[in-house]
């Protein structure tokens, strides 16, 4: 039941949840299951975060397990790492993905390396839950998608779900994982609704989900860009072009094979991701596809990321910086020789 499609095929009873509800449910289930799990961050308790994702969690688990911290990202991230090394399973809430910059030493030099540096003696079962995504008019320091940073670092795992089903199953897996996991939610998707099984489930890392099957072009998209890709696929369908939309769901571990196989099948691929385009996730995924499917490609693998500028405030400018269904559609059309 690693995908919603499978769960539906198995006839699991379901209900509709928002992504925020799915995240909260995953946290609550894991906190009930394992007393060493706790949530720590700025305004996570009574406030339930500015996005209200954690609303109500403190009522069940109290302030000793849903812990408000000072505005002190390096500090509470470090405490999370130390706690994880000594028997706890912290879920560290980094309100905005942009603030990952403040926690870099904890994430990169400490959490990611403790196990290796100690020859396998230490484990750091910590989750950094944070956000990504622009177009909320939050300007340059609250809009970035920096998931490529942790993706770059050996020792870290990186998760970026876009549906309630994926968000819940992957967060539960992240909490149970004995490695540091950085878990990104797109701020624009918190109210996205989707079906979630009534029964408990987890989703293994490193298994891509084919969000839509197709034959003519592969659109590999991450997080909210999955919806952009699906929008483009709708438009392409009107031209008789069948697009396959693949959501890797985790950038590490990464399901390379599904992407490569799809590109082999369609001979064309576009990678769409909301991180900055240069040196970005798109570069890595495109290179993997180009490498693995080279002799099956009929066009260069194209990348579409966020424009290489700090995210501007003005809506008139900000909307230009991220891929849209229209720009993906145009690119796909061009690759298919229909421009």
């Amino acid at each position, binding site marked *: 039941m690693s995908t919603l499609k499978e769960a539906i095929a198995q006839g699991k009873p379901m209900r509709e949840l928002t992504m925020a509800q799915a995240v909260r449910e995953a946290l609550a289930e894991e906190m009930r299951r394992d007393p060493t799990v706790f949530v720590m961050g700025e305004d996570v308790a009574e406030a339930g975060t500015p996005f209200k994702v954690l609303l109500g969690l403190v009522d069940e688990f109290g302030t000793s397990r849903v812990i408000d911290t000072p505005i002190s990202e390096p500090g509470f991230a470090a405490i999370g790492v130390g706690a994880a090394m000594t028997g706890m399973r912290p879920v560290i809430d980094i309100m905005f993905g942009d603030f990952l910059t403040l926690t870099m030493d904890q994430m990169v030099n400490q959490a990611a390396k403790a196990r290796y540096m100690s020859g396998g003696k230490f484990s750091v079962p910590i989750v950094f839950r944070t956000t990504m995504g622009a177009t909320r008019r939050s300007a340059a320091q609250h809009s970035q998608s920096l998931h490529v940073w942790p993706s770059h670092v050996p020792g870290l795992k990186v998760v970026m779900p876009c549906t309630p089903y994926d968000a819940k199953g992957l967060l539960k897996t992240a909490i149970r994982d004995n490695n540091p996991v950085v878990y990104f939610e797109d701020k624009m998707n918190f109210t996205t609704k989707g079906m979630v099984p009534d029964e408990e489930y987890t989703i293994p890392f490193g298994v891509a989900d084919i969000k839509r099957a197709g034959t003519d072009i592969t659109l590999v998209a991450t997080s909210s860009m999955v919806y952009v890709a699906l929008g483009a696929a709708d438009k392409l369908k009107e031209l008789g072009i069948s697009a396959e939309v693949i959501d890797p769901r985790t950038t590490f571990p990464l399901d390379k094979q599904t992407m490569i196989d799809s590109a082999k099948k369609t*001979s064309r691929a576009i990678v769409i991701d909301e991180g900055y385009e240069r040196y970005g996730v798109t570069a890595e995924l495109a290179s993997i596809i180009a490498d693995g499917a*080279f*002799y099956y*490609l*009929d*066009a260069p693998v194209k990348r579409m990321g966020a424009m290489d500028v700090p995210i501007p405030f003005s809506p008139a400018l900000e909307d230009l910086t991220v891929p849209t269904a229209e720009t993906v559609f145009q690119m796909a059309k061009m690759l298919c020789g229909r421009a």
Partner: protein
Amino acid sequence: MATNVIMPALGVAQETGKLLQWMKSEGEAVKKGEILMVVETDKTTVEIEADASGILSNVTLGVGQEVPVGQVIALILAPGEAARPRQAALPTGRGEIEATERGKSEPSATGVAASPLARRIAEENNVDLSLVKPAGEKIEKADVLAYLESLKQRSNARLAPASPKARVAAGEHDIDVATIKGSGIEGAVIYGDILSAVAARAPRQAAPPAGRGEAASPTGSADDTETVKVGTIWRIMAERTTQSWTSVPHFYLTREVNAGRLMTWRERAQKRSPAKITYTDLIVRLAAAALLQHPRVNARWQDGAVHLNHDVNIGLAVAIEDGLVVPVIHQAQSLSIVEIAARRAEVVGRAQAGKLKPADIAGGTFTISNLGMYGVDSFNAIVNPPQAAILAVGRIVQRVTPVDDRPAVQHMMTLTLSCDHRAVDGARGAQFLQALAEMIEEPLGLLD
């Protein structure tokens, strides 16, 4: 000096050859000109003569094995020459292994027969002569120049924009991407372009023949048919006609011609010739002349383009017990009737004796099939790829036809031209047929 025995390239499109039989065993003495081995090509089975006298040695190819053409499969050792160490033999040292490997894979350039001019051109252009395939016995200037040209084309092919997928497909179908107009980004050749190119020409590789599958299927006892075992020639005929029929877009042009003058011509020619002159000989002569005027019919469709052949090499469909073979009368355009007749007698004789040489069947550019002697009025022949057309010739028969508004009895003959529509269109085929018909009806203009 040992002589390499290679798997010969015997056809325009032949890539591999299969060894059917060694006529000499390893260590046995062989004389130059003796039959050394029997090889199966994509066209037929041929007996290959020894190029040199000596002892057959270093045989690396077993019966039934298939290798790329040009590959060395044995050596003929000069008298007194020691056998070269085999790869499998225990080497005494590393240097020896390397020497052996080198000796096998890179025959020294000085050992290649080449004209002094060819050698000089090769030297000036840094060409390894062992890589040049001579058209004749030894490498001439033209061979080296052709090799240099092919290198240029190859590098152009690398520069031609094409998608990786298209390149793979082009390789599989032996298509030069540089000859194809691309429909991809920046004019790149993409997979679809290759598919179109393949669809528009006869594939040069025989598809797995249906015949083989049938032969392999068990014939149940309840089956009241009798299974006839077919030979290699029959099997190849089956494969090639299937391949042509399923992949070459055929069309047919039929025309009745008055054969009266042709009959007169034959009688006159016969008087001047000690050997027998047949109608086929005359038609070969006339067809060669017509083909010179209509080169598009003396052509082949290949790599997405029409390639015109300079020479007119006319193949004759010859029925033998084992099936159909097509020996070729080369450069028919420059042969007299007597020469054509002599050549025809020679190759047909060899065909019927099952002794065709590789050169006898190679290089055909047009084929004539004459079933007149079997009383056939007319028929549609199957194009012989990669040729563009085949002429089916029916019997000469008396017909009542109107002449000057009055019925007259005349000797008529029906010609049917089968064309590969990728190389020849209806109008061009018709023009050729008209030219040929006019020549048959008034052959004296050509008389030599």
